[in-house]
């Protein structure tokens, strides 16, 4: 089952913020974490993560800095900011509302 493009795009922000809320990370690791969490259902084209990260950075939800990786290569690490946490909480409520609504109607469909 592959998710539709719109749904993938819409879920990108909360997903990335939630992953960064677990701890600082970098692009490649975030992609791996998404694949791991979704059990492979959420297939991102890898490159698309970076514009999302840059947009979040510009909006002030995440902060980035270049640092040396364990192998000595320069790597851009991302960290969630206070505004980012607030945004994550807001998104969480919105998704919960969507989820609750759909759940309500599908439960009824099942019982009828």
């Amino acid at each position, binding site marked *: 089952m592959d998710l539709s493009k719109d749904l993938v795009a819409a879920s990108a922000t909360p997903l990335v913020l939630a992953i960064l809320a677990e701890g600082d990370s970098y*692009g490649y690791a975030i992609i791996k974490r998404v694949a791991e969490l979704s059990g492979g259902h959420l297939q991102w*084209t890898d490159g698309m993560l970076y514009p999302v990260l840059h947009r979040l950075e510009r909006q002030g939800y995440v902060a980035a800095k270049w640092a040396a990786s364990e192998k000595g290569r320069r790597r851009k690490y991302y960290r969630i900011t206070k505004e980012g946490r607030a945004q994550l909480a807001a998104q969480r409520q919105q998704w919960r509302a969507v989820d609750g609504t759909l759940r309500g109607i599908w439960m009824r469909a099942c019982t009828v």
Partner: protein
Amino acid sequence: MTRFADQPLEEHIAQWRAYLRRRQALDGPDVEELEGHLRDELMALTEAGLAKDEAFLVAVKRMGSLDALSREFARAHSERLWKQLVVAPDATDQSANTSRAELLVVLSLVLAAALAVKLPALFGIPLSPDEELPPFYARNASLFAFPLLTVYFVWKRGSDVVRGLSLALPFAAAAVFANVYSFHNPGRLDSFPQGSDTQVLTVLHLPIALWLAVGLAYVRSRWLANGGRMDFVRFSGELAIYYVLIALGGGVVTAFTFTMFSAIDMDPAWFVAGWLIPCGAAGAVIIGSWLVEAKQSVIENMAPVLTRLFTPLFTVLLLAFLATMAWTGSPINVKREVLIGFDLLLAVVVGLVLYAASARDPQAPPDLFDGLQLLLVVSALVVDGVSLAAMAARISEFGFTPNRVAPLCENLILLVNLSVTAWLYARFFGHRGSFAALERWQIAYLPVYSVWAGLVVVMFPPVFGYR
């Protein structure tokens, strides 16, 4: 960099990198970040047992189409594309509007602007070199070119009729408010008691108010969206530069007209003052806008370059002024010219901040130039604080006249902007805020200027009895 022992693989990566570099939407660090990702992926794939070239194919495929990728990057960093405008290939934008059609539209609009300037002459308000400029022209100056400029943007952006008509509303309102008020002695364009102060204020403020309407046409639906208003700020700066260049060229033409016709004992003054300068001034607004739209890359980012040049100079000027005032203890002379002078100074400082912000990568950490900007803003605040205190002490003595109230309020509007700017800059330096916050503040504040200018045009004449 983790390098792969395999030479062909490194070559593949180098080729891929070079291909990525050619994309305008991606800058050096972006390419480095993506390359890092590719190498991580390659490591993982080869460790899983794939051959090097297989791993490369898979990794590149997983990265996704580069066209789609650079489009997404372009959306995230719209400022990098100001030059190329490859963003928004909405299909609708390109199909109909070929460059030849655009040229025709522009030329007819220029012609319309020139005719609009001559139209009042048919109703007995001519322009002639022997008389002073009739105030009618000064009051309506922005109405000769701005509506046509709006038409150009409505056409160019493919806005629908409803939107085009709603954009006509501000201009209609402006035409009414500029002309219905019975100003004291409307034939003179100078100060009370001979002329009318509020008329002069209308002349000065109407263009600022109407520029907002032009902006709404320029950005179409992107007024609230990310980057739309900043693009309009860039457009305004580039237009100002083009306009000055065109005006310089016009000055040369004028000078030659005079010398050459004087050589055969003809006086071309009626033509220069009645046709060349007024029609040229109106037409140049359209031509300049078209040049900005069409040929951005020629003198692209001129405004930010000027900003870099003049920020240090203005900082030195302000500091020298403060030092001299502290040293000699001379009080500030409160006249209208002084009030307006300080407003202009603040406006220049706001402009410097705005254009520095428009060209800056919001993600870069604070650097020396940001420090200079903060110093500039703070010294402007101090200078303005001192002058405001001096004015406040004496304004009650002289009473409230339109000529004092308007500059004072504008001073306050700019002061609020600069205070918040200084605060945001300080936060940015303390790593407690981002530059994006500062950019957002400047952008959010833009309509305030126009709304205030509109208020001055609409409210001041009746409130101050048309003096």
